[in-house]
């Protein structure tokens, strides 16, 4: 029998990041009366969409013990090429698929380097970052691509009152959550990140799954590229610089452990919202740019410290490892 105290601790462990988010939302709504308006909440979600989608890719890779530093640059490459394809063909579908294809291609190369040639993900994806940015700049000669026409529908259009970019974010959230929580592949990623050698020994096709994770990341980065370029109504070869860090920050703030094997979709979503709300409220109340950077760093560090501190030894890793054991 669990005592009340144990139950309370368990709830705190599981929902600590959501408690942080809730406290932040309450504080923000006290600080500025416009914070909880539908218009502002819609803004926050639109602003979050690209970073959240990247964060899911980052989360999947980190859970399985890998990393992607190239996502910002690949986003720019897939975005400008998608814009270019749209301007040549006039087809939104072909342009959308082109972005995904470029994302997949770049991540396939990442996967080959990491999985087949055992290059450390940090180095392999750093190299891809440089190459992808270089190709984007070479292709556009450093110039923005203008006059996007209907291409902006992805990032600026709405279905009813709901922005399309938010719909993308919701659908992707559900898919990633399902993959991670309800498929053998998703649950195996925790095992791979927790102990790769043990995973190989237990019969998990580690290399194959690592390839799949990179390919999923490629699809997500491609979609993010389309949303980013259509949101700013331009093909920006030098856009999204540092966006890989936005994705990583959301994932880490959301409880994904850099040591691998730990992380959840909803935690990452909460992490993205914490960062997004923080950016939003600081602009709403007119905090100076330099002070914003300091506050952002301090709050991110504090929330992660509190989240880690509030978790007991019984982490998600153990819970999910037990589930895998039960399944098999």
């Amino acid at each position: 029998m669990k005592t009340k105290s144990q139950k309370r601790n368990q709830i705190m462990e599981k929902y600590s990041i959501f408690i942080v988010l809730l406290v932040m939302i309450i504080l923000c709504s006290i600080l500025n009366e416009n914070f909880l308006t539908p218009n502002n909440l819609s803004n926050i979600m639109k602003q979050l969409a690209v970073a959240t989608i990247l964060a899911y890719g980052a989360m999947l890779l980190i859970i399985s013990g890998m990393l992607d530093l190239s996502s910002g640059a690949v986003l720019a490459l897939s975005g400008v090429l998608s814009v270019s394809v749209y301007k040549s063909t006039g087809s939104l579908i072909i342009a959308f698929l082109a972005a995904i294809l470029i994302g997949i291609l770049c991540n396939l190369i990442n996967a080959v380097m990491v999985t087949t040639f055992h290059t450390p993900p940090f180095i392999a994806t750093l190299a891809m970052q440089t190459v992808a940015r270089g190709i984007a700049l070479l292709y556009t000669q450093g110039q923005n691509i203008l006059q996007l026409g209907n291409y902006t529908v992805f990032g600026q259009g709405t279905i009813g009152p709901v922005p399309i970019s938010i719909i993308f974010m919701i659908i992707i959230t559900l898919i990633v959550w399902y993959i991670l929580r309800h498929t053998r592949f998703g649950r195996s990623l925790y095992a791979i990140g927790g102990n790769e050698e043990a995973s190989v020994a237990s019969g998990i096709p580690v290399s194959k799954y690592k390839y799949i994770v990179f390919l999923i990341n490629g699809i997500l980065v491609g979609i993010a590229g389309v949303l980013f370029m259509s949101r700013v109504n331009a093909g920006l070869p030098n856009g999204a610089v540092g966006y890989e860090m936005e994705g990583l920050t959301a994932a880490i703030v959301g409880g994904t452990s850099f040591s691998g094997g730990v992380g959840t979709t909803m935690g990452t979503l909460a992490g993205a919202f914490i960062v997004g709300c923080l950016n939003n409220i600081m602009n709403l109340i007119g905090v100076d740019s330099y002070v914003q950077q300091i506050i952002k760093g301090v709050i991110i560090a504090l929330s992660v410290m509190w989240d880690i501190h509030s978790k007991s030894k019984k982490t998600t890793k153990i819970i999910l490892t037990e589930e895998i054991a039960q399944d098999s």
Partner: protein
Amino acid sequence: MTALFISMTLATGLLAGCGNSNSSDSTDSAKQNASETESDSEAAEAKTESTDETSSGDTYRVAYIARAQSDSFAAWLANEMLTAAEQYDNIALDVFDGQADDEKENAAIENAITNKYDAIIVQPNNGEAQRPYVEQIVDAGIIAITTNARIDGIEGASSVDADPYKQAAVNATLALEQVPENAKVVVLNGPSGNFHADERRKAWEAEFFEKRSDVEIVGEQIANWNKDEAVQYMEDWVSSTDQIDAIISMNDNMAAGALEVVAGKEGFEDILCYGVDGTAEACLLIEEGTMTATCLQSAIDLAELNMESVHKLLTGEETEINVDINEVLITQENASEYVKMYKERGLIEE
């Protein structure tokens, strides 16, 4: 085996880089250029473009160290430098990329000095960081020009620039008449410490805000010249403020980003918007009546004036030159002229 593989890869990369940038080896100058470039791997890696060599025996080798080829204006300027250099039979121009990094830009300057170029044109990433290196150019007896932005007070160095204060001031003067009484405005700034960003903001302060105490700034942030950052700030300001009468932006990219948020939005139909640079996008927006005004910082004019200046310095016609291009205010009255210019250069589709 690993070492052999890496060596071969590096050699192939270097050969590919040199093959790209040195298209001819028909002259002594070209041969000298190629061999010197090959002797310095960093220079070979950083070198991005070069003009064709001339057949004249008196070819002057000029290095242009661009701030960052990833910056759209800097990339445009670098391309225009190459085009302008083609007008001079006795100038061979090589372009190097500073990659928006002081360390890399300074290394590129040092390499150009080592390679004994006849003249070195530097587009600083950060004026004060490049100052000692431009002084080294002068000390080495090589002609030095700083451009966009100039580095002031280097004895023996020349400069070609646009005056960022005046660029913003022409907009501010127009805004004095156009911005309504008791207006609420938002301000988008460039990167802190950037000479052009700081001077433009100073001009707005002195030429507009100090003269219009009725105007209230309801939002001001650094959007680092970036369109996507400006979009985000403007979205937040529109949420928190009922009224925004004008967007005052230190460049066109950020102005266009802010306008993207209020395009077609009820209550913002008459919003005024001022930028600087005269980019293709801004000219289109001004022509269609969405944006109010910008000041042209013409890469074409800057490049032509740079080449004219370096030619005069190399041939001994002048010993020191400090010049600025003119500030051209673009409004709806003359925007079509510049849209046409961009169409001719392929930067806007017909």
